[in-house]
Structure formats: structure tokens, C-alpha cells
């Protein structure tokens, strides 16, 4: 199912790539939000301790700081756990019980002042046009440091002035207090996302399998046609493969039609050859009574029939729809050059009046065959003047070939072109080409018409579709 180059593989790989990207983005986004949330919780807790400390802070006349009560509520009473506070004045410093007499390293006072104020906590944003509840510089600022046991600490620092005495309040929480809950939440999240991703991939595999099932059925139908179990591919198909099936059936119909035509053709050819062959064979078994005079016409007849059928078998139009655009003027000129050379013995004046914008929807080779045969006929019968021209209407073009000869009268041409007599050798000296030309023209949806030319001879006109 997932071999290289398969549709399933392609669909699955794309989906998996998208799912992987989506899960990574989700994990990062959720992780960031969680981090902000945990950090916010801890900051709020530290900030309320800062507020509590600053409300109890007093300064004596000698500039010594003191607290009006105990500030060591939980968790600040637990020793050496990272939850510490320290108030530093010019003369003395007050410490939490948990510090156990150790000192907190403080960043430089001016550096603290230079730090940007933290963003206000969520839900605490000032109204758009109202005054902020408190100015940013009143809020404690964040910081990092190391505790007495060299553990990483997260600080909140505020500088206050109590009765003219400056003091710095630092409250700290262990870094682990942020990472611990975050790690726990992220582990759960990762497991959930993993499960989600796996479920999605499985769902897509199922979807691909189900979605591509009509293709498998289609393959089976085509195999049935090939094996001869059915004639056509069933027409009821999902919307997406319906056009493909229509094309396929069209192709099958065309093949069947071509096959039928080829069979009919071979049958005609066999019939057309076997009769003269039988005569020939009888004549040869009786050599004293037959001479070349009897044999040559039969060989000629067979040759003409073979040429007719080969000409038809070669027709390019039979091999598929015609999308070719054939500019006919240069081809007519080439054919004219050839025929003038072949008939160099007679002085024949050929006039070609065809502009270069006459373009036909016709294979060049087929056009050469049709026009060549008609022009050859004119060269055969002319007394000296031939005119080739083209007339256009909206969808068809008419190639008109006229001569001044006294060859066939129009009613004779009609007789020669009739299907039943198209190989009738009784038409005196008639080129074999007209019947094949007519067949080719009809394959293109065109026709051959004939009449009397102003030049005095025959006028043959070949109607063929114009290129769009």
C-alpha cells in the first residue's frame, strides 16, 4: 500500500508532515502559556510578600530598619528551600527565617532601577482611557540570583523609602518552583499530543485506504475489460474519477470501432485480391491461351486495390483525434512543383491562389494525400491550364481544383466515387486516388464535390474543417 511512488504514500507522508508540525507548534504554544501562567502565580505570591513586607517596614531615627510584626508565614519559614526575603537598608538588613542567617546576593541598585517594569498581570490591565491602577514603577521588578546553597533563584525586587530611609525589598522563590509544575504539565501534554498524533495518523491511513478504494475497483474493472470479462468500465463512479472513466470508455469505443473498421477492411481487401488472383492462377495453368495482355490488367487491378487499402491504413486521422493545424498554401505549392516536374513533357500552366491564412484541422500527411490525388487527376486531364484556389466559410474550407481538360464528365465522377464502384476499373484511365481521397475527406467530416469549371474542364472541390 505504501510503496514508493504510491498515492497512499504521498497522501500519508503529507498528512504526517502537517500533523507533526501542528503538534510541535501546539506543544510550544501550550508550553509557553503554561510557563507564563506558573510564573505569574509565583510572581503574584512573591509580590504580595513584597507588599506585606513594605507595609510592616519602619525606620528608626537612627536609620535602622525594623518590622512591626513577623513576616515569616509559610513558605518563608522553611529553611534553605529557596523561599527567602531580605530587606536591606543603609544601616542594617532584615532576613527571613529561612535564610538562616545567610545573605542574598543583590544586583546593583542602579541596575535594578534601570530594569524595565514587568508587564501587568493578566486581567489587571488598565482600562483603555482610564488611569492605570498603579504606575509600573511601583510594581516589583524581576531578577535572577543564586541562593546560599548556590541554588537558582527567581527574585522580585522593590526599592522603597520608609520615613526618608531607602530600603530594598527582595523576595525570592526557587527556580524549581517554576520548572517543577511546568515539567509535570508538559509531560502530560506531550503524552496527550503523542496519542492525538498517533490517532490522527491512524485515521488518515484509514481514510486513504477507504478513499482510494474506488481506484482499486477501477483497476479491477479495467482488468476485467482486458481479460474480456466485460465490454466497458462501469459508468457509475465517484465524481473525481468519472471523467477518467468517460475517457477510458471513449477510448475503448474508439478501439472497438477501429478494430471493426480494420476487420471490414481486411475482408474487403481479401475479397478484392482473391478474385483477380483466382483468374490469374487459372490463366497461368493454361499458358498457351493467355499472354501478357490478359495477365497485366489483373496485376494492375490487384496493385490498385492494394494501394487503395494501404493508403487508407496509413491515414493518420485513424490514429486519434486531430489537433494539428496545417497551413495548406506551402503544401499545395510543393505538390504543384512535384506535378509540374513529373509532367515536364507537357507545358502546363498551374495557377495557385491560396493565402497563408488558410489553416485546416487535418494531418499534413493526409492533406498531401488528398490534395495530391486531386491535383494529379487535374494534371492528367488538363489541356494546359490548372487553377487551384481556396474558399473559406465559418467552419470549413473548400479547396477548388479546376482544369480545362475533357476528362471525366461530372456524372462519370459521381459514378466512380460511389462506394460500390469505387474500385471499378472500368472507369477509363481513372487515377485510383479519388476514392481514397473521398474516404479520407469523410473521415475528417468533409467531402468531395464536383462540377464544371469555368476553364472548361472538371472542377473538384475538397471540403475540410478549418482549424480553430
Amino acid at each position, binding site marked *: 500500500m505504501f510503496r514508493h511512488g504510491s498515492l497512499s504514500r504521498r497522501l500519508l507522508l503529507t498528512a504526517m508532515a502537517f500533523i507533526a508540525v501542528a503538534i510541535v507548534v501546539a506543544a510550544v504554544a501550550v508550553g509557553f502559556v503554561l510557563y507564563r501562567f506558573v510564573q505569574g502565580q509565583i510572581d503574584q505570591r512573591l509580590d504580595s510578600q513584597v507588599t506585606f513586607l513594605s507595609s510592616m517596614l519602619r525606620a528608626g531615627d537612627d536609620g535602622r530598619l525594623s518590622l512591626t510584626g513577623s513576616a515569616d508565614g509559610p513558605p518563608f519559614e522553611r529553611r534553605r528551600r529557596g523561599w527567602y526575603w531580605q530587606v536591606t537598608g543603609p544601616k542594617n538588613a532584615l532576613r527571613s527565617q529561612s535564610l538562616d542567617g545567610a545573605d542574598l546576593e543583590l544586583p546593583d541598585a542602579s541596575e535594578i532601577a534601570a530594569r524595565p517594569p514587568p508587564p501587568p498581570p493578566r486581567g489587571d490591565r488598565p482600562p483603555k482611557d482610564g488611569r492605570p491602577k498603579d504606575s509600573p514603577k511601583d510594581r516589583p521588578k524581576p531578577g535572577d540570583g543564586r541562593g546560599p546553597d548556590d541554588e537558582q533563584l527567581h527574585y522580585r525586587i522593590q526599592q522603597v523609602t520608609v520615613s526618608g530611609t531607602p530600603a530594598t525589598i527582595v523576595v525570592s522563590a526557587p527556580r524549581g518552583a517554576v520548572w517543577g509544575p511546568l515539567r509535570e504539565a508538559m509531560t502530560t501534554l506531550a503524552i496527550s499530543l503523542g496519542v492525538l498524533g498517533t490517532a490522527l495518523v491512524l485515521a488518515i491511513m484509514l481514510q486513504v485506504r477507504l478513499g482510494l478504494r474506488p481506484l482499486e475497483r477501477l483497476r479491477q474493472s479495467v482488468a476485467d475489460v482486458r481479460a474480456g470479462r466485460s465490454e466497458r468500465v462501469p459508468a457509475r463512479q465517484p465524481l473525481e474519477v468519472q471523467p477518467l472513466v468517460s475517457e477510458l470508455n471513449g477510448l475503448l469505443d474508439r478501439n472497438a470501432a477501429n478494430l471493426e473498421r480494420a476487420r471490414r477492411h481486411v475482408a474487403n481487401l481479401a475479397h478484392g485480391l482473391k478474385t483477380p488472383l483466382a483468374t490469374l492462377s487459372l490463366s497461368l495453368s493454361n499458358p498457351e491461351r493467355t499472354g501478357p495482355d490478359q495477365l497485366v490488367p489483373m*496485376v494492375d487491378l490487384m496493385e490498385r486495390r492494394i494501394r487503395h487499402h494501404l493508403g487508407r491504413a496509413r491515414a493518420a486521422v485513424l490514429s486519434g483525434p486531430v489537433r494539428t493545424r496545417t497551413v495548406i498554401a506551402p503544401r499545395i505549392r*510543393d505538390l504543384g*512543383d*512535384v506535378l509540374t*516536374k*513529373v509532367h515536364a513533357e507537357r507545358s502546363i500552366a498551374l495557377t495557385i491562389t491560396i493565402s497563408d491564412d488558410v489553416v485546416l484541422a487535418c494531418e*499534413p500527411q493526409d492533406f*498531401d494525400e488528398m490534395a495530391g490525388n486531386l491535383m494529379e487527376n487535374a494534371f492528367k486531364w488538363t489541356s494546359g491550364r490548372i487553377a487551384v484556389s481556396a474558399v473559406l466559410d465559418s467552419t470549413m474550407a473548400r479547396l477548388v481544383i479546376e482544369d480545362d481538360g475533357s476528362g471525366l464528365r461530372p456524372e462519370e465522377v459521381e459514378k466512380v466515387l460511389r462506394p460500390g464502384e469505387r474500385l471499378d476499373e472500368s472507369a477509363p484511365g481513372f487515377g485510383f486516388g479519388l476514392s481514397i481521397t473521398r474516404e479520407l475527406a469523410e473521415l475528417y467530416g468533409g467531402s468531395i464535390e464536383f462540377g464544371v469549371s469555368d476553364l472548361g474542364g472538371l472542377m473538384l472541390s475538397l471540403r475540410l474543417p478549418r482549424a480553430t
Partner: protein
Amino acid sequence: MKVLLVEDDGPLAQEIAGALRRENFAVDIAADGEDGHHLGDTELYDVAVLDLGLPKMPGAAVLRAWRKSGRQLPVLILTARDGWTEKVDGFKAGADDYLTKPFRIEELIMRLRALARRAAGHAAPSVACGPLSFNATTGVFELNGLPLKLTALEWRVLQCLILRKDVVVDRIELMEKVYEGDAGTDSNSVEVIVARLRRKIGHDLIETVRGRGYRLASGSA
């Protein structure tokens, strides 16, 4: 008249050559495109018959190569390919005539005679020179209105001279045009033939131009 026949089908080539020789033509046969190209490029011929589907070098390529190197000899394409597109291509490659197989040998002979005559600049099928006349379509010579009986070699020499009447035909060229490629020739043989011809048509018609060749003169008559 000398014909180069380039045809790879042995029996057919022999049939054609036999028929052409019965009509007094000298015939050289080449069985593939390369040989044909070489012969046409180096020997003198009045006309060539060229098949299109040849081994080693396709007929159309042979023809184009001849034309490219300036060989003007008339070429008749003899092929089974009877489509008009192929005919057009053949003429564009430089052919002068085109005949499709199967064909009648009489048709081929007639067309070859016409090609040779036109190549020599005669538009009309009949060429006259004093009491002598030559029908280029049937290949028959007449003297004072009566058919002239000639051997093949005599016919070739006389045909060569009459198609270029009033012009001096080089002795060497005459020899090349009269003898087939593999025939052993001796340099006096042309003189022998001319002597025999003079006995048949009279001594005045063929002039000997010393050191150069012969001329069929119509001026005196």
C-alpha cells in the same frame, strides 16, 4: 546512354538492368547507398535510378549528397513509398522524377529517355540532325525516314552524339558513357564503333575533331 541503377533487391535490379540493356542502355548496378553514392559521384551517367530504402545510406541522403557536391545528373526515384508527402520530400531532395513500385518497365524506360533528353536541353521528343532523326521517346533512329538498325554500342555512341549535336563530345567521355563499369575496354574501340556508324549513316555526319573527340554536325545538311 548510361544508367546508374541503385537498387538493393538483387532479382529486381537484374530484371530492370536486363530490360534496360535490351533497349541499348549501358547499366551499372549498385546494391547499397554507399556504393551508389560513390559511383554517382565519380563516374559519368546520363541518368540514375535510385531506390529510397537502401542499406548503408538512405536513397534521399545519397541524392542530397550528390546535389550538394554539384552533381546535376537527372535522378528518377524508384520506390515502394507512394505517399504524396514522401514524393514531395523526394523532389525536395533533388529528384527529377518519381516512379512507385510496382511499375511497368516500359514506363520506366520512357521516363529515363525523357529525363536524358531534357537534361541535354531538348524539349521536343524528336531530335533531328540532317537526314538523321532520333525519337527520344521510343529510342528509334531514322535515316531519311527509314528505321536504322544499330548494335547497342553503336546506338549508345550515336545517341550521345545526337543529344549533343553540333557540340564536340570528348572521346574519353564517350567511352565512359558507352561501356558499363566492369567492361574491359580498349582505347581504340570508340574509333571502331564510329567507323562502323559512318558506314551506316554516311561519312559526313560524324566529324572527328583531332585530339578532342567527335561531333555530329547538322550544319552541312
